């Protein structure tokens, strides 16, 4: 393809091609500190292509393609090309990654142990991880946590943090301006702005960590902590994993070990500071 970039995020590497220069320029700038794929060979290919040949120029419309694709994908405006590229990489992971049990969860690490937070979009897991990542924890990822079936360790996937709507302002108060990507207004997911994870998140991206606590955060409710049984945690994590079923017995072994070894809590919260105080207390007592 006319424009391309290669990059590695944790254990997974990507080759992104585009019919237009801008998404590649943005990716190259924001991922400048990330390593290149080993040997120059990528695990996955992502393509940003015009939906029809003339749509490269007239009302440009980006179709997200690649090795693995999903039906019903909607094309996106070229102004949201960076988001399209990120979605394309996520899609490869969600559909194609087999080396770990992939949990749709954010993850941070402290003192060699990991806190895993899972929940649907809007639960606040992504923003919480981003905030903790600026307050002494190592950000391991805001979207996917990779559980190693052999060792039980969590591996990082610290892609760009995808900040939505109010979370953008929250994080502008915590991280310097040069780590932000362009503001993309009115995307299908609302306003989006990417944040480059800090130095330690990037330089330590290959370090695995033993998980110590599993949280199911829920934003927008009065503060409350509830114990989550192993059965419920197992059930919810199978639904938060895109490759649980495809990993077969390896996935079963990894996930049963995870839910029997690690305490799980559901936490409701109404503000970030409140949630962080709750997390600190739980981390003290449980992890």
């Amino acid at each position, binding site marked *: *393809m006319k424009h391309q970039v290669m990059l590695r995020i944790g254990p997974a*590497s990507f*080759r992104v*091609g585009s019919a237009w220069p801008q998404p590649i320029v943005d990716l190259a700038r924001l991922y400048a500190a990330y390593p290149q*794929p*080993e*040997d*120059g*060979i*990528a*695990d996955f*290919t992502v*393509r940003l*292509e*015009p*939906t*029809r040949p003339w749509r490269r120029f007239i009302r440009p419309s980006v*179709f997200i*393609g*690649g*090795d*693995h694709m999903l039906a019903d994908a909607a094309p996106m405006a070229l102004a949201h090309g960076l988001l399209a590229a990120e979605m394309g990489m996520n899609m490869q992971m969600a559909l194609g990654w*087999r*080396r770990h049990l992939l949990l749709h969860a954010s993850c941070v690490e402290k003192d060699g142990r990991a806190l895993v937070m899972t929940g649907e979009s809007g639960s606040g897991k992504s923003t919480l991880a981003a905030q903790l990542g600026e307050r002494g924890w190592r950000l391991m990822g805001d979207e996917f946590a990779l559980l190693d079936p052999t060792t039980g360790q969590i591996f990082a996937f610290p892609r760009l943090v995808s900040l939505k709507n109010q979370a953008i302002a929250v994080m502008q108060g915590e991280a310097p301006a040069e780590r932000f990507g362009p503001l993309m207004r009115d995307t299908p997911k609302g306003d989006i702005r990417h944040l480059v994870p800090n130095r330690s998140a990037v330089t330590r991206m290959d370090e695995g960590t033993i998980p110590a606590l599993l949280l199911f955060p829920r934003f927008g409710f009065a503060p409350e902590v509830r114990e989550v049984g192993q059965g419920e945690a197992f059930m919810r994590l199978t639904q938060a994993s895109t490759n649980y079923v*495809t990993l*077969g017995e390896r996935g079963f072994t990894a996930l049963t070990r995870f839910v029997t070894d690690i305490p799980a809590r559901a936490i409701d919260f109404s503000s970030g500071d409140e949630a962080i105080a709750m997390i600190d207390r739980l981390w003290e007592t449980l992890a």
Partner: protein
Amino acid sequence: MSGALLVAVLRNPASASRLTPGDWNGLIAASRAERLIGTLAVRLAGVSVPASVEPILADARDEAAREARQALWEADRAAAALAGTGIPVILLKGTAYAAAGLRAGEGRFIGDLDILVPRDRLDDVEAAILAAGWEWVKPDPYDDEYYRRWMHELPPMIHKERDRMIDIHHTILPLTARQTPDAAAMMADAVPLDGGLYVLSPEDRVCHAAAHLFADGDLAGGLRNLWDIHCLLTECRSMPALTARAAQHGLTKAVARATRLADALYREDRSGLTAFDHLFVARLLARDGWGRETRKLLRFAFFVRSHWLRMPPIMLARHLWTKWRKGHRPA
């Protein structure tokens, strides 16, 4: 062109040791797009490849093993569902190759479960399959009537718990096609396996694969189907036996062309190719280093041809109209 590279490496796995990183990226993308990465990974087992390629191939081999296990389970469930009817379950395509342990099944991507049953027992089969938890995919009466009137299979069904599709065939080509293979003879000569399952005879497997390659598609995914044929040919008892069987099914031309193309691409024996065959080769290899299909015009020509082969002209016009309105995604 990565289509040609893929074919070359499948043909001669040792040649992979000379590939550049750019070649590898193209090869991996093309083999995924052609759903041949599992086959490629099996072929490359034991060949020295770059460190970053090894886990990609290992994943593909694991995936293929899982696919095979899943497919065999679906076959087992279909056999259990039909056990009370006394109707034999004849497996077709990928599941058949996996169940019979054929070379074509090694690393192969397997999608839906395809089975062949006698046309006069279709009602019993349909009832037994529905009772065992499969349900219609499309509730649309137009589609249903279309299938029952013109197609060689029932409308697709999906299992409501396992989310896996089953295609129940009563012959191997649409009833609108000009060739009329002898489905009864295929069933009579099917070979029994364990667990109440059957597969077609070696010659009928080639006939079916060839008919499917040319008549029942626009050659999309053709490299994989042709790899099947290349492998299946080695298991035929003799060429005369195959030729005679093809003639019985009215598939002489299809089987001859499939054999020529398989020899050209996977044995590098291009001696038999006709001028028209070269167009097929170009169409089959139309895949670039990003895994995209190339040669739009040629592809469109094959698309129209495939429909011309199986539909009366007025139906064709209506069908193409609908397809065109449906729009195409770049691929």
